[in-house]
């Protein structure tokens, strides 16, 4: 049902025959004769293809981000015009215990879910990759968690984590009492992390599996001849070869978890107390419950700074790869 990789190449070489070889042979002679105007015209087409996207990003990404930075130095409630307050918003934020707790929650959530998504995603991919009969069907079925709307995931898990819910039913034989996962200070955020992993790990499982299938088989054959056990093969061959994919998964899932809003909003409403309040929730509440647009913009800038760190890592990695490829 699910066959990852390898087939894509076949279709490419297949359609190569559609194009007359004679044209390709004629190409180098003709190219010298191309006029500058013709080259410029092609360049213009290329730029024209990108232009709609650039306009879109100017209006909906860069413009708003610059506006958010500007707004973070103002007090603004939509009704009266913005009033310049300098660094006042940031000063208030730093002094605010709710903001500090929210920031710590967000970082804890990002760290926890990124780590678990990567480990579980890789473990699932390795399990599928053993090639046990039926493993591909298992993979397709597990991918279902990724197709359920996040809201449905939240609603279902809110019931499952209820004191009388399925999670406690499953854990009961192990002597674990009826825990109210979502209203307990110490379990609420970890519970949300588990739900996040349940939802996203199968997606990254497929990403890992695609990478695993692309690994060169001869390394493994050589290692096996040398008598290396499965664990050593994994540690010395699979893990190093997979490191670009692991890096990619870590960055993408960190960016993904920095945006978490719906899960705490539905499952706990940020509680108990502020135990599961995260930055996107605080932005929304500050802006639309308290009408403090400037303060909300300042929180956005903090969230932006967190995402900037991960994006910078990804960019450096991406540029290095581009150089290797070209």
């Amino acid at each position, binding site marked *: 049902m699910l*066959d*990852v*990789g*390898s087939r*894509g190449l076949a279709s490419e070489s297949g*359609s190569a025959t559609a194009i007359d070889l004679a*044209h390709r042979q004629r190409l180098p002679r003709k190219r010298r004769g191309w006029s500058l105007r013709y080259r410029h015209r*092609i*360049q213009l*087409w*290329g*730029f*024209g*293809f990108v232009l*709609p*996207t650039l306009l879109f990003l100017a209006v*909906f*990404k860069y413009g*708003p*981000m610059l*506006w*958010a930075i500007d*707004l973070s130095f103002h007090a603004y409630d939509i009704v009266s015009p913005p009033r310049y307050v300098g660094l006042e918003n940031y000063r208030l934020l730093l002094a605010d215990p709710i903001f500090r707790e929210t920031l710590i929650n967000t970082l804890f959530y990002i760290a926890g879910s990124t780590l678990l998504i990567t480990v579980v995603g890789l473990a699932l991919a390795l*399990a599928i*990759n053993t090639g046990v009969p039926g*493993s591909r069907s298992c993979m*397709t*079925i*597990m991918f279902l968690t990724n*197709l359920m*709307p996040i*809201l*449905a*995931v939240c*609603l*279902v898990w809110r*019931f499952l984590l209820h004191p009388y819910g*399925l999670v406690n*039913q499953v854990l009961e034989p192990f002597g674990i009492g009826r825990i109210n996962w979502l209203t307990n200070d110490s379990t609420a955020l970890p519970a949300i992390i588990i739900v996040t992993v349940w939802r996203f790990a*199968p997606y990254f499982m497929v990403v*890992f599996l695609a990478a695993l*299938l692309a*690994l060169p*088989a001869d390394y493994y*054959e050589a290692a096996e001849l040398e008598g290396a056990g499965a664990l050593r093969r994994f540690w010395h061959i699979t893990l190093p070869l997979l490191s*670009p*994919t692991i890096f*990619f998964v870590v960055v993408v899932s960190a960016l993904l978890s*920095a*945006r978490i809003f*719906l899960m705490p909003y*539905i499952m706990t409403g940020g509680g108990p107390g502020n135990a599961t309040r995260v930055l*996107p929730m605080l932005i*929304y509440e500050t*802006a639309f419950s308290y009408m403090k647009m400037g303060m909300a*913009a300042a929180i956005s800038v903090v*969230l932006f700074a967190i*995402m900037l760190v991960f994006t910078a890592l990804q*960019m450096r990695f*991406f540029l290095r790869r581009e150089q290797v490829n070209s």
Partner: protein
Amino acid sequence: MSAIAQAVPRHRSRRASSLTRRILVRAKPVVGLVALASLTFFVVLPILWMLTTSFQAGDKMFQFATEWIPSVWHPENYPNALSRGAFPQYFLNSGIVSLAVMVGNVIFCTLAGYGLAKFQFWGDKVVLLLILSTMMLPLEVTLIPTFLVIHKFGWMNSYQGLIGPLLIDAFGIFLMRQSILSIPTDFIEAARMDGAGELRILLQIIVPQCIPALAVLAIFSFRDSWDQFLWPLTVVSIDAFRTFPLGLVQFGEAYGNPATEQMAIAVIATIPTFLLFVLLQRLITRGFGLSGLK
């Protein structure tokens, strides 16, 4: 199956095979299958729970032992849930918005991906970085100013307001660029020699070769828009434009609506993404190799 079978190293026993060893070799796939199948079962248990609960009587929700097969089936949960609240309207709105976002992403990401993969123009590297770096500017970060922009445009409570900020996603451009990079430039130049216009080259040479990537792009842009909650919550305040997640939360908060009916709506809401996945799945899995940074 064949792709996986080839990639898995064969475990040949070089020692003389004793009886126990032979039994172990035979048993290994079976043990593996049982382990993997039970793992899969635990993973999908919440989905099964959602399905069975949607057919359950309202008062069966909170008893400690889950009744996996309802003693009395209540299929009427579905029509009942749909008739409370304006769910047909909410689903229609979600459908319109998600399809528009999907089509927008497919068109604009293909254009931009092609422009970045196969053309050199002044500042092209900077443009690439500018586009990719918007991955750090999701709606959650730019929520306030984007809301103010939409407010200024007069797009509150409208489809264009719901669709606009989601129309192009940097991830899609990246995906399309990586996919188009692998198409030989010779094809394009040969077509140019034949006098094919640039748009014709795009439609007849580029697009047919990146169908798997397009399928991945289509399903993920549809799903992400179908899932979108924070943005509709911010720009919509009337029933006529509410999407189903807003409607479903409202439904859950309203007094006296049984949770079983909430689950029925959740099941219905899973169907569109599931169908899209089934339709495109052969292509999707092929395209997946691309999404993991080539």
